[in-house]
């Protein structure tokens, strides 16, 4: 049982972060397909259909989690997607196959050019698992208490903060390989 305000924050930030993550996948499908191929986990015939199915599922889950009727299913789908993604990243990190674009960092990755260095690491795995936990939090039932205006203020402000903090972490992650490449220049 968690407080409804915390639940609201989890749901709202999960939705915003997941939608921000799908946007570049819709805008540049070829780039996401290249990312999927680079993971080297899927048979080649499955890459193209999945490159459309995964963003569609992610977007549907992100929107579905907002409504009480579809919350359960959507939260499970979102959490499963992020866990799968985390597992795929972990396998590639274990393989030592780290110089790939993770296809994950939302706005940040979309704005950076293809020439900037890319790499994945355990931080990316942790990031995917944090997202899964955020989506899974929507499954926890809320305590029933009467909400008042101040609760909506807290929920709104905290959601904005959570999303801003999340994107800051994304930028920090994107900068890591750039710092590494600076060492050798």
């Amino acid at each position, binding site marked *: 049982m968690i*407080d409804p*305000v*915390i639940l609201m*924050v989890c749901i709202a930030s999960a939705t915003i972060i997941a939608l921000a993550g799908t946007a570049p996948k819709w805008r540049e499908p070829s780039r996401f397909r290249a990312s999927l191929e680079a993971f080297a986990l899927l048979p080649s015939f499955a890459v193209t259909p999945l490159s459309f199915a995964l963003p569609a599922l992610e977007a549907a889950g992100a929107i579905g989690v907002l409504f009480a009727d579809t919350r359960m299913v959507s939260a499970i789908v979102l959490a499963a997607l992020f866990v799968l993604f985390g597992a795929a990243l972990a396998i590639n990190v274990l393989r030592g196959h780290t110089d790939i674009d993770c296809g994950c960092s939302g706005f940040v990755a979309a704005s950076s050019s293809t020439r900037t260095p890319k790499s994945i690491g355990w931080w990316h795995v942790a990031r995917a698992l944090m997202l899964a936990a955020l989506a899974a939090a929507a499954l926890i039932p809320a305590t029933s*208490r*009467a*909400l*008042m205006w*101040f*609760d909506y*203020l*807290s929920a709104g402000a*905290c959601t904005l*903060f*959570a999303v801003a*903090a999340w994107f*800051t*972490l994304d930028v*920090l992650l994107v*900068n*890591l390989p750039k*710092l590494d490449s*600076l*060492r050798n*220049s």
Partner: protein
Amino acid sequence: MMQTALIISAALSWAALLALGAICLALVRQVGILYERMMPAGALMIDKGPAVGAIAPVFELGDIAGRAVKVGGLSNSKRNTLVFFLSPTCPVCKKLLPLLPSIQAREGSVDIVLASDGEFEEHAAFYRKSGLSQYPYVLSQELGLSYQIGKLPYAVLLDDEGKVRAKGLVNTREHLESLFEAKELGVASLQEFVHGKHDDHAHHGHHDHEAQVGQHA
């Protein structure tokens, strides 16, 4: 009810505060790494050829376009000379060449001489393409041998008296500028300055300056 709302709000604020603290730490760490990686901005000196402070050998050469070029020796117009050793096949050289005009503009009285050696045709084509016809381009094996150039792009800064004032392997604009800074500071290289061995050299530089003033008088 208000109390619950305030407790939740305060708890969320504390969580946000902790998250911000963690983000600040991560940011500061990245900035720290950035400083560390940017630190060695001096041109890498390879201890071969004429030492810094020594009189450079004098070469009277003809460049690709047939102009007479003098490298080393006393400069009548009191100008320094930057000899830039390059090769048409070296990618870093191509990256640095377009920066030369702005470096010349920044440093003032410096003549830039491009130096290489090899087949005339290849170099002439490269020279035309690079669009740097204002700088003489000499082909001389002897020049390269006298400075014992092993790696490119390499630059040597000579002063108006024909002395070697700084030299080194240059990979970036900062490296090129470090040669001029080393000359102004009177040190052999910026690395030496950073590592605090500059006392006697600074004195030496000062001495040089006095000698110059004496000449002017």
